[in-house]
């Protein structure tokens, strides 16, 4: 109000004949990127479609199996959640599975972030023979599907008698091409050459530069990459399914056992409870850190 009163000559209050068209155009130009009601509506529909299956998982997990297997399907939560959780806990090794998935995803995230930062730094800021060719090779390895390596790896694992051990899931995922590329993209923009040169002039060797220059600059990207890799590793299915058994499963392997049976005697509510328990840790991470994960993806470092 005060601002409007103090600037009556700005033109918006009482435009002259000559000023009107310019004002009109300016308003359109200024509002071209403002969301209209249709945009809100469409986004609301997208949000509902995204969130409804999650809500319904909770609904089904808190009802009885008989209720879930009736039409129309239940739409509001019931009171059976704890009964279902304890049944799911007995049917599959959910406790072990949650612990195992945390260990696997944690190790994979830590080592991927560490090795990706080292390689990403080298590709972004160091000069060496074959750099571009090797970087192309890194990107090319992303196209090789895991199916190509499963059979020999399975043989090696059984030979070593690691069939039921977590290292057989961790070792093949210690570093990811995606991570190397991610860190390279980030560091080429975020880390000035002058900083490295200054450290070199001061006589710092490469490991020192990594520790005192690269890591502090890379920290935000390392955090985002760590979260992305943790999510990916937690949700990884194919290789853990092939190599682990139900005695020592990750969450995904345990879920495949809960849902893999057939016949009508299976308690559908318990299956949904398994899905809920297996997803909840990640949803909690998302609820707390979702903005940072979104920020990490939209920073543009994920794509080329």
């Amino acid at each position: 109000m005060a601002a409007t009163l103090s600037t009556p000559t700005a033109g918006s209050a009482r435009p002259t004949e000559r000023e009107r068209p310019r004002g009109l155009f300016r308003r359109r130009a200024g509002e071209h990127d403002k969301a209209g009601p249709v945009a809100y509506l469409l986004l609301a529909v997208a949000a509902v479609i995204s969130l409804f299956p999650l809500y319904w998982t909770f609904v089904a997990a808190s009802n009885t199996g008989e209720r879930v297997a009736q039409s129309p399907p239940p739409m509001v939560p019931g009171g059976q959640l704890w009964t279902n959780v304890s049944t799911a806990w007995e049917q599959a090794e959910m406790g072990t599975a949650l612990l195992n998935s945390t260990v696997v995803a944690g190790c994979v995230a830590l080592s991927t972030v560490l090795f990706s930062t080292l390689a990403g730094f080298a590709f972004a800021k160091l000069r060496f023979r074959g750099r571009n060719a090797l970087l192309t090779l890194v990107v090319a390895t992303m196209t090789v599907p895991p199916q190509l390596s499963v059979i020999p790896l399975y043989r090696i694992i059984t030979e070593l008698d690691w069939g039921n051990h977590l290292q057989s899931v961790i070792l093949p995922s210690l570093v990811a091409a995606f991570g190397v590329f991610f860190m390279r993209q980030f560091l080429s923009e975020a880390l000035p050459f002058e900083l490295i040169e200054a450290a070199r002039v001061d006589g710092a060797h490469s490991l020192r530069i990594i520790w005192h220059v690269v890591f502090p600059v890379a920290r935000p990207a390392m955090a985002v990459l760590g979260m992305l890799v943790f999510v990916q590793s937690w949700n990884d299915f194919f290789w853990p399914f092939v190599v682990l058994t139900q005695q020592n499963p990750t969450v995904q392997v345990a879920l495949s056992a809960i849902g893999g049976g057939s016949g009508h005697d299976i308690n559908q509510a318990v299956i949904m409870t398994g899905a809920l328990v297996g997803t909840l840790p990640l949803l909690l991470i998302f609820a707390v850190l979702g903005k940072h994960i979104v920020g990490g993806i939209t920073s543009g470092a994920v794509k080329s």
Partner: protein
Amino acid sequence: MATNVRAEAASVAPARPAWRSRLYRFDLKASPYAFIAPFFLCFAAFGLFPLIWTGWLSLHYVDLLKPDVMEWKGLGNYTRLWSNDQFWTALRNTFTIGVISTVPQLLMALGLAHLLNYRMRARGFFRVAILAPYATSIAAATLVFVQLFNPDYGFINWALDAVGIHHTNWYADTWPSQIAISAIVTWRWTGYNALIYLAAMQAVPKDLYEAASLDGANRWQQFTRITVPSIRPTILFTIIVSSIGATQLFGEPLLFGGGVGVSGGSAHQFQTLSLYMYELGWPSRQLGRASAVAWTMLLLLLLVGLVQFLITRYRKRHELGG
């Protein structure tokens, strides 16, 4: 921290002996290779070496339980695939599921990114909400969708019933089951791709839009003539990544099929190449034939990559010429 480095370096810098400068040069030369070594060692051990071994295995008859006994077959495993109906069904399914899971997904992601790029209230909420499916796993999402798609009591048939579409058999019929599996993939990945597009759209200079709107271009024209051309590299990137993902589809059809998941439904109606490979290698114990399927997948991916490469090159040349 920086002062630490400085102080220590200063104490040795004045009289830098010869071996020290040699060490410095060695550090400069060798450390880049040391930094990238973990990636390449890991890839050699868990990617390249097994890939070649798989190729070797594909030329043999090998039993899962007696892996040391290898019987030379030459290209026999491949010719057997060629004349095998189930292989062609799996190949066709991989292709159709790939198309109906990738094309609508990327188109919707593009639209959503465009909407998210507007100035609005609650943009943070919308972004996190559409990314939420990304936090669910293949296994959990599939188990939930199996329930939602249940032909007898599932939510989707109940909702469709209300608009006059009665009893679609999402489990047994070919197209409905493939659409259901594609819906799982689409649900999990649309938001993620939308955010990648959004990142690219935010880099498009704002004055391009202002100029266009001054010239009287409406929002649709701005979208098709400015946004899409500007983010074409990103679109290409997501097409490549999604089509690679689609060729590897495994967990969704496996768990969607419940008890008959490994065979991709009772009539293989949604068996993908990955599932077929697993069925041959583990339940049927024929590692040689499974390896042949794996290598066929690799060759197909190379073929797809080559086609995409040729298309981009053709387009580039075409544009430069015109």
